[in-house]
C-alpha cells in the first residue's frame, strides 16, 4: 500500500537539491552513498525519460542541467514510491500549457513541482489537482513594476500599505500563492494575475477571496503557505475541501 494512499492527504516535500548531489544521494534504489556527485547525477539521469534527458542535455553541462536532472529524478523517485511503479517506467503527459501529469492508469495521482535556486518543492495528491511555487526573497525583478502591471488594484494596495521593508516579502508571498493556483489549474502565465485576489494581511490565512467571472472558483480551491528554509517563500494550492497538508523535510530511499 503506498504510504500516501489516504485521499485526504496532500504530501509536500521541500528539499535542497545540491546537497543531495554533494552527499551522493540518488533517486534510484541502487546508488551507493559514496558515489561522486557526477556518478550520482548519472544515476539520476538514468531514471529520466528520453525527452527529459534531451531537455537536460540542451542545458549544456552547468548547474542548470544538474538542477534539472536532480529535481526530475527526485520527482520520479517520490512518484515511484507512492504509485509502486519504477521511476523510469513512469510516463508523463503534458497539458496544452505544459503542465505534466501522470499518464493513465496513474492519472488520478496529481503532482506539481517548483524549484528556486537550490530548493525544490513537490506536492502529490490523489484525485485532486495541486500546484506549488517556491521563490527566493532575492529573486531578481522590479517587484513594484511587476505589481503595478500584473496585480489587481486591491493586491497592489495591500502591498503598498505595508512598511517599505516588508513590501518585497509581501509581493513574493502574493506571487507564490497566485502562481501555485495558476500551476494547479495548468494556466501558466497566460492567466491574468489581476483576475483573482489572495489574502496578504499577516493575520489572514492564505486564501483566494475573489475570482473574476466565476463565483464557484473561489470555493473550489484552498491555498496554504508551505514552511520553507530561511530566504524562501512557498505555497501550495489544492483543489477541493477536507484535506490535510503533510510536509516532509527529508527524502531518501528508505524514507
Amino acid at each position, binding site marked *: 500500500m503506498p504510504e500516501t494512499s489516504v485521499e485526504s492527504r496532500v504530501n509536500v516535500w521541500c528539499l535542497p537539491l545540491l546537497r543531495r548531489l554533494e552527499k551522493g544521494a540518488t533517486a534510484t534504489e541502487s546508488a551507493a552513498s559514496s558515489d561522486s556527485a557526477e556518478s550520482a547525477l548519472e544515476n539520476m539521469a538514468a531514471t529520466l525519460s528520453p525527452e527529459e534527458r534531451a*531537455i537536460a542535455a540542451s542545458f549544456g553541462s552547468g548547474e542548470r542541467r544538474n538542477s*534539472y536532472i536532480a529535481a526530475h529524478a527526485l520527482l520520479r523517485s517520490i512518484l515511484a514510491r507512492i504509485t509502486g511503479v519504477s521511476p523510469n517506467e513512469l510516463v508523463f503527459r503534458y497539458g496544452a500549457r505544459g503542465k505534466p501529469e501522470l499518464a493513465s492508469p496513474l492519472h488520478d495521482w496529481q503532482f506539481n513541482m517548483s524549484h528556486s535556486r537550490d530548493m525544490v518543492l513537490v506536492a502529490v495528491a490523489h484525485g485532486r489537482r495541486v500546484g506549488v511555487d517556491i521563490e527566493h526573497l532575492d529573486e531578481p*525583478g522590479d517587484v513594484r513594476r511587476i505589481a503595478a502591471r*500584473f496585480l489587481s488594484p486591491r493586491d497592489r494596495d495591500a502591498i503598498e500599505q505595508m512598511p517599505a521593508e516588508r513590501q518585497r516579502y509581501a509581493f513574493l508571498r502574493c506571487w507564490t500563492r497566485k502562481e501555485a493556483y495558476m500551476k494547479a489549474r495548468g494556466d*501558466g*502565465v*497566460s*492567466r491574468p494575475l489581476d483576475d483573482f485576489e489572495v489574502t496578504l494581511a499577516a493575520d489572514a490565512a492564505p486564501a483566494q477571496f475573489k475570482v473574476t467571472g466565476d463565483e464557484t472558483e473561489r470555493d473550489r480551491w484552498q491555498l496554504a503557505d508551505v514552511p520553507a528554509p530561511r530566504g524562501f517563500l512557498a505555497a501550495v494550492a489544492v483543489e477541493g475541501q477536507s484535506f490535510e497538508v503533510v510536509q516532509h523535510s527529508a527524502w531518501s530511499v528508505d524514507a
Partner: protein
Amino acid sequence: MERQTLVNLMVALLQPLLDDQNEGQNVKATQTLSLVGDGAALTSMRLVSFIADLETTLATDHGLSVTLVSERALSRQKSPFRNIDALADFVLELIATEKGAPAA
C-alpha cells in the same frame, strides 16, 4: 510592424534576462527557446518581466498598445508564451485586431 522586426526586438529584450539567470552559461535567445513548461529557459518572475518589457517597448517605441496577458491568451489551446515564434504571432494578431485589420 514587420514580423522580423518584432522577433529581433523580443530577442534583444530576452537575452539580458537569460544572461542574468544563466550566468556564464551562454544561453542564446532563439525563436524556439522554451519560455514556459518543463525546461523553460526563464523563471516565471523573469518571464513576466520580459512580458512587461515587451509591452512597454511596443508602446513607447512603436506606439502600439497591446495587453499580452489576457483572457485572450488564456483561451488559446496552446500558450502563446511558449516561445518567441508563438509570441510574435500572438502580438501581430493583437496589433492587427487593434488596428481592425487581419494579421499579416
